């Protein structure tokens, strides 16, 4: 377990950043611009993958960039948890880049160069957040990400996106400056350092009430994790084009929120401190409230993307719940769920986008019998839905499996009940879509039986992600090993 000094992490962050001027300058020629996006995506993914073997056998790669204050400087260090998240983000970036070509050209959206440029900026901030070694670097990339996604969310520049952009900012920027900044400075004031360390940075000088307040400030501060009271920005952000909702709101943006909460729970507070003060139960309770209510609301949503948004809020709280269980199995399940949910949910968003590109329909009530017209998309939708619900042949099952084991290990029967009922609710709001798409009578079907899919560039990514989440069930290898490694790092010490 030693620290390898290497510039790979910073390169992985800088490549998407460096490609932005090239993208902007080649705005005139779309194909050249798309080619550059791909090159950047593949390069950064290759860099991330090249670091996997080193991380797998237990040591951390890192680099200190700028000293800001004694004990808190901008530094990157790749450990198991960071590596897992970076792998997910960079791999899905390539797939989404392909998908956004199909989508944006399908609807000939305006100012695509600006879209692609901010997309690359958002990804570089996500990878940066994944590799950050301490809380201040994480906060830095968190802020860049929230500001880089604002032009993406409000891409259509119309009245509706203006209102949702305003709500997006008030929640994300408001909570991050209002809650996280003071909390971070409070920690630095109390301990003098912000480095993530296995045993947590508080060596006993934190009383229970102030620890609870600090923890709540962090949990509700990272509004990107969509914990219940601060979640309303996520459904509002669905006004954005689908590639944005797909990558950012299924994978990058929300996952950074959850990732930061896990980092804070394990790196700043430390598992022993949390279990000794009994704060794990509090966070678990908040997460379970979010899971149940969001799954219930998702039932009533008619618009396809809003239903997926509420289901994302629910799934995110699974991850927080896993981390809050403080039992090894539970945390492994939570961390693994980042990957499984990412691939499952992105498939569903791709389906929603494909249907919108092909038929222009947004509302589920208008999608009766769509299976006849777009069978490939709908089967991919089935696999994605099964992965989210947690049925066996898909990867989602494994993470749910570990989560359930975690609740048993930590003998918290209430959490077990919450997990099972929410899985039922997931099934309740996904299965009707699939059922109505294929098994509807001739009279009700709104689409004739002609095979008419979305453009190829939309459907191919769809199929790839569905296949990956299917394969995960059989060989979840890099991610499972990474999550178990991360958990042993936090608990085993």
């Amino acid at each position, binding site marked *: 377990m030693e620290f390898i000094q290497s510039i790979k992490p910073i390169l992985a962050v800088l490549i998407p950043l460096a490609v932005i001027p090239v993208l902007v300058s080649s705005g005139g020629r779309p194909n050249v611009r798309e080619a550059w996006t791909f090159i950047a995506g593949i390069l950064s993914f290759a860099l991330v993958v090249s670091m996997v073997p080193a991380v797998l056998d237990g040591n951390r790669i890192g680099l200190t960039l*700028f000293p800001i204050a004694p004990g808190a400087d901008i530094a990157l260090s790749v450990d198991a948890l960071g590596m897992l998240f970076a792998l997910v983000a960079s791999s899905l970036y390539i797939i989404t880049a392909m998908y956004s070509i199909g989508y944006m050209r399908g609807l*000939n959206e305006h100012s695509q160069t600006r879209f692609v440029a901010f997309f690359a900026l958002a990804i570089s901030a996500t990878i940066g957040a994944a590799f950050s070694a301490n809380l201040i670097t994480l906060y830095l990339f968190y802020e860049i990400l929230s500001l880089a996604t604002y032009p993406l969310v409000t891409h259509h*520049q119309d*009245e509706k996106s203006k209102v949702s952009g305003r709500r997006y900012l008030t929640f994300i*920027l408001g909570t991050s*400056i*209002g809650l996280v900044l003071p909390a971070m*400075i*409070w920690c630095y*004031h109390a301990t003098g350092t912000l480095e993530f360390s296995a045993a947590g940075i508080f060596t006993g000088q934190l009383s229970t009430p102030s620890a609870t307040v600090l923890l709540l400030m962090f949990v509700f501060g990272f509004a990107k994790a969509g914990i219940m009271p601060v979640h309303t920005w996520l459904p509002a952000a669905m006004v954005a084009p689908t590639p944005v909702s797909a990558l950012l709101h299924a994978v990058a943006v929300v996952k950074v929120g959850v990732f930061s909460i896990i980092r804070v729970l394990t790196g700043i507070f430390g598992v022993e401190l949390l279990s000794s003060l009994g704060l794990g139960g509090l966070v678990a309770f908040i997460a379970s409230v979010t899971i149940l209510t969001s799954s219930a609301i998702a039932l009533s949503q008619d618009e396809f993307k809003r239903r997926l948004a509420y289901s994302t809020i629910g799934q995110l709280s699974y991850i927080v719940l896993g981390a809050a269980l403080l039992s090894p199995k539970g945390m492994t399940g939570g961390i693994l769920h980042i990957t499984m949910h990412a691939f499952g949910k992105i498939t569903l968003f791709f389906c929603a986008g494909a249907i919108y590109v092909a038929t222009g329909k947004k509302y589920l009530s208008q999608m009766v019998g769509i299976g006849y017209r777009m069978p490939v998309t709908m089967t991919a939708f089935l696999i994605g839905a099964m992965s989210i619900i947690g049925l066996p042949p898909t990867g989602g099952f494994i993470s749910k499996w570990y989560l359930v084991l975690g609740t048993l290990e930590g003998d918290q029967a209430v959490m077990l009940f919450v997990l099972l009922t929410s899985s039922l609710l997931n099934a309740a709001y996904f299965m009707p879509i699939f059922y109505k798409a294929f098994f509807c009578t001739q009279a009700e079907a709104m689409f004739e039986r002609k095979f008419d899919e979305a453009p190829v560039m939309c459907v191919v990514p769809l199929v790839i992600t569905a296949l990956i989440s299917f394969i995960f069930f059989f060989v979840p290898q890099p991610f499972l090993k990474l999550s178990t490694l991360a958990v042993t790092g936090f608990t085993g010490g």
Partner: protein
Amino acid sequence: MIHYPAIVVIAPLVGALIAGILSFVEERYAYPAALIATGISCAAAVRDLIYVAGHGPIAYHMGGWAPPMGIEYRIDTLNAMVLVLITAIAFLNLAASWPNIKQEMPDRSPSFYAMYLLFVVGLTGVASTGDLFNLYVLIEITSLSSYTMIALGDRDRGPISALNYVFVGVIGASFYLLGVGYIYIKTGTLNMAEFATMIPTLQDSTTILTAFILCIVGVFIKMALFPLHVWLPNAYSYAPVGFARIVAPLMTKVMVYVMVRLMITVFGLDYIFIKLHIADTLVWLGTIAILAGGVMALAQTNLKKMLAYIIVCEIGYMVGGAWLGNDLGLTGAVLHILNDGLMTFALFLAVGNMVYKLDRVQIKDLKGLFAKMPWTMTGFVLAAFSIVGVPPTCGFFSKWYLILGAFKAGAWHFAAALIISSLICAVLFFKVFEVCFFESPDTHDGHGSDTHGRHTTVAIQEAPAISLAVLGIAGISLIVVGMYSKTIVVRLIWPLLSS
């Protein structure tokens, strides 16, 4: 024999005089002369900084006389840093402003450059002098030249706001003069360093107390701290753009430097914080300034007025930070002088470009600006993020130290005010971005074009290249100063506090 402290002040004065002569003889050469003068002054200031960072303070005896008899210019790390800030911004602003000045006052721009350089002389002098009365004379030069240049701006309201500024400025400067008089009566010396050695023996004399209160009130008036800020919004928003870009970032910050100089070297930290009990009232004053500045900025429709109120808010940061009573707060205040100078400079550069092209600064007239002037808006956005306190830019790091100092001193109200003001600034700037981003320029008032996908591609009408280049330099320097804030703090600010 290092002459840099003298060159920094003398070069702009020579430039001003030559520009004054040239404005009657050969108008064409006035601008290059001004540019060269500020360039030399900037180079000298940088050499100063390097020398001082390496070898400790320089004491430059004017006229060859030792301090108490003659006047002495003491340059230590604090004013070396401020000097570099002043001369760099003066030089960059001069380079960026000639299109604006040519547009606003075509017939008398050469003598405007002369007055501009006199203003720079005043500022550099204030930042480097070690003599109390000489500081008064330099404050007078700065204010005199700023009175005139403010009146050259807006035809209707320029002279009136300048006149109000004259009355308030004279009261401020005269209070300071009176304070120096009281000091002189009690100690017989005008040199800062020598007065500092005499303070311990005069700890409990009422005259020194009144002298301190008078000096501080005078500096607060010139600094536009909240209750005394009435003159600032009108003065800065009706000033010509070329001048607003240098007075906004520098004038109030140099006055904060004077306050810090009075606290550290003249009266001494232990006299201020142990003997007097006004430290926490002043932190409360800073808090009120922050909140009032933010709230008033929210109510503005004119972009320049809004930025002026943000300056009032930033002054609250520095005053509150300096008076927290611990080294972290003071470090934050000093670092904020540097950062806020850069941020406000970048903001006013962007506003200057907008005024050059649009000639109207009401927020509702800035429709579709992201499409029309993309580079100016990127600079504006970067500076706005720095004011809000987004990490990569330097605004975050000075807020970091200020909040830390507030926690250490237990001044929860000040920390809360800092957070709330960041949120207010976020709301302010995004209110402007919404207008610039969403409404496309040709739609009539009220509703934006909410038809999906159909957008008029607006022709890009950017400001002249030189202004954009300077805006780029300012933007990049925001991030660079942010990244190297630790070296600035450890190398420049902490040796100051320990001495």
